[in-house]
């Protein structure tokens, strides 16, 4: 870690605008994301957090599955891998285990992580291999034009739940925590600075970190569910629909009902997988 970078506080509050260029691949923009999509905001928060940690591009590997969110690795100047739908965690497990010096980040969507990739997700959390998982949670399948996802609220409309979803959604954070992730947090694209802080802590944490990021899809989720425009959608879901951990702690339960809690929700200390394996190697080889 370079001292200069880590010296600054998070979130980024310098006078000059933040320079994203050192982290972006020249010539690979514009991105594929729709106007009003929060994926770009999330990426910016992530890059500022990485900058604050002083990580070198060479030491970062970003792995993704398939989906809009999974296109992120194509834009960043790291060691990047765009893999297959649902499988990013398993590919990332191979990368990290083979070279534990790499800082591994997984960018994934709610469908990618929790539907087709659900099993890999819980096992990644259980192993506690050091990696940071960003679930870009837009409650819908963006890439394939708006089918229902496992985080879609009951009653929500999608092209595969035209009359309202009758399925209960997954809570990404509860799932991650129960499966054993040692750092679990939630942010939103609306709260970009707070998200930067959260991601900073998530990246710094040694072990599997999961950050559920509410990042509403305007093109499909927003339109299908009668949100007037992007700002109204973000305001009603991400701003008014959520509450920070600190605020929630101050309010009586009836005031927080129905609100989704943001911030760091769970932290635990547990032996990281690669360290555990190193212990095993020491034992076996010193015999």
């Amino acid at each position, binding site marked *: 870690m370079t001292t200069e970078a880590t010296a600054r506080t998070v979130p980024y509050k310098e006078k000059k605008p933040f320079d994203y260029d050192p982290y972006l*691949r020249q010539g*690979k923009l514009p991105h594929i994301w729709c106007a009003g999509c929060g994926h770009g905001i999330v990426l910016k928060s992530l890059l500022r957090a990485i900058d604050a940690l002083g990580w070198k*591009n*060479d*030491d970062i*590997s970003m*792995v993704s599955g398939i989906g809009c969110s999974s296109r992120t*690795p*194509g834009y960043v*100047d*790291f*060691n*990047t*891998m*765009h*893999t*297959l739908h649902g*499988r990013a*965690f*398993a*590919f*990332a*497990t*191979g*990368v*990290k*285990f*083979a*070279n534990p*010096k*790499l800082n591994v980040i997984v960018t994934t969507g709610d469908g990618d992580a929790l539907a087709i990739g659900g*099993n*890999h997700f819980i*096992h990644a959390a259980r192993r506690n291999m050091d990696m940071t998982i960003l679930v870009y949670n837009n409650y819908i399948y963006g890439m394939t034009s708006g089918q229902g996802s496992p985080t879609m609220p009951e009653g929500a409309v999608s092209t595969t739940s035209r009359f309202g979803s009758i399925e209960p959604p997954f809570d990404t954070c509860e799932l991650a925590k129960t499966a054993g992730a040692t750092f679990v947090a939630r942010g939103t694209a609306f709260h970009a600075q707070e998200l930067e802080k959260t991601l900073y802590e998530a990246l710094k944490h040694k072990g599997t970190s999961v950050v559920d990021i509410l990042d509403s899809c305007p093109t499909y989720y927003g339109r299908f569910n009668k949100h007037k425009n992007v700002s109204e959608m973000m305001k009603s879901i991400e701003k008014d629909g959520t509450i920070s951990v600190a605020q929630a702690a101050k309010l009586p339960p009836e005031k927080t009902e129905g609100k989704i809690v943001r911030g760091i929700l769970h932290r635990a200390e547990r032996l990281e997988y690669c360290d555990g*394996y190193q212990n*095993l*190697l020491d034992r*076996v*080889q010193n015999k």
Partner: protein
Amino acid sequence: MSKKKIFVQGNEACIQGALYAGCRFYAGYPITPSTEVMEQMAANLPKVGGKFIQMEDEIGSIAAIVGAVAAGEKAMTGTSGPGFSLKQEIMGYAAMAEIPMVVVNVMRAGPSTGYPTGPSQADVMQAKWGSHGDSPSVVLVPSSVQELFYETIRAFNLAEKYRTPVVILFDEVIGHMREAITIPEPGEVEVIERAKPDCAPEDYKPYEVKDGKVAPLAAFGTGYRYHITGLYHAEDGFPTADQQYIHDTNMRLVNKIEDNKADICENEELFLEDAETVVFAYGVSAKSAKFAVKELRAAGIKAGLLRPKTIWPFPSDAVEKISKTAKKIIVPEMNLGQIHGEVERYAAGRCEVQGIFRVDTEPIHPKQIMNAVLGVPVEPTVIPDVVDFTARG
């Protein structure tokens, strides 16, 4: 140090070959009859400082080895039938992203869960066509425990040389049979190490083709930052929609293997010069075929053996050649004629092609092959009591 002799089953010979070739990463999920491949890796890799991980399923296992290869390791995964089916999507990914790695499939009887503890050769077509799209396939079919050791080394070498996934296909019999094998000393058998880029990082293009060869795959974390994707990608690794380039890339991926058959295909040939009937057999069936051909020769019958060690790319030249001199080719397989069809294709009507297809999980008996050569009708599930060498059907 004198040469090491060990008495092991095929599954262990396979991992000994992998270790000899420098494989230091294994991810897997247990399944009969390949489980010992995984268990032996679990027992041996830590001793040499290698990485072993039991994944949550076969998809995760093959995904993990792709990740490990990107991070610079030589890596392998192993499985059987149902697990091989699960791995198919990522077989295609590895072919597309040109990831050098080795996948073992110890065949058991299918379809479905089928018969876990009995041999089969019914995944030969899946090994070629199992993943969607036209993709390159390199598939080795060793026929003894010692050969499995050497062929595993060859699998790793071919993977590195052609930057492609290589499959080793054997079956429950070879996997579980014990034979005394010799482990050569280090350096005795050639091991191809992964080529490293020699250009500056800013000039590196992971899919650049020079003199027909794709650039070396740089390891993540070594300063060569690049992108890997299963989408059609340009030389720099980023997705492309250039239709001519897509066409050229699909052709290149397939032809980097097909055009190098002379290097990749290896056959064992026995008495082919004057053989009137040639048995074309691979894997476990070739064991019986070899025995049968020798017996027939001893009885003065002009039989020969063509035994491919590489089934994909298909040894079409060798089949074409014998179809011009032999009267008949007999193809014994533990499936319903998957390779028989290929032999017919390349014999192209120049000689008769007859199959013996046995799917009751019992290996094809030499007597069945002898009878077929002699022209006596063969019942797939019935082992004849005697062979009448005077018979001419």
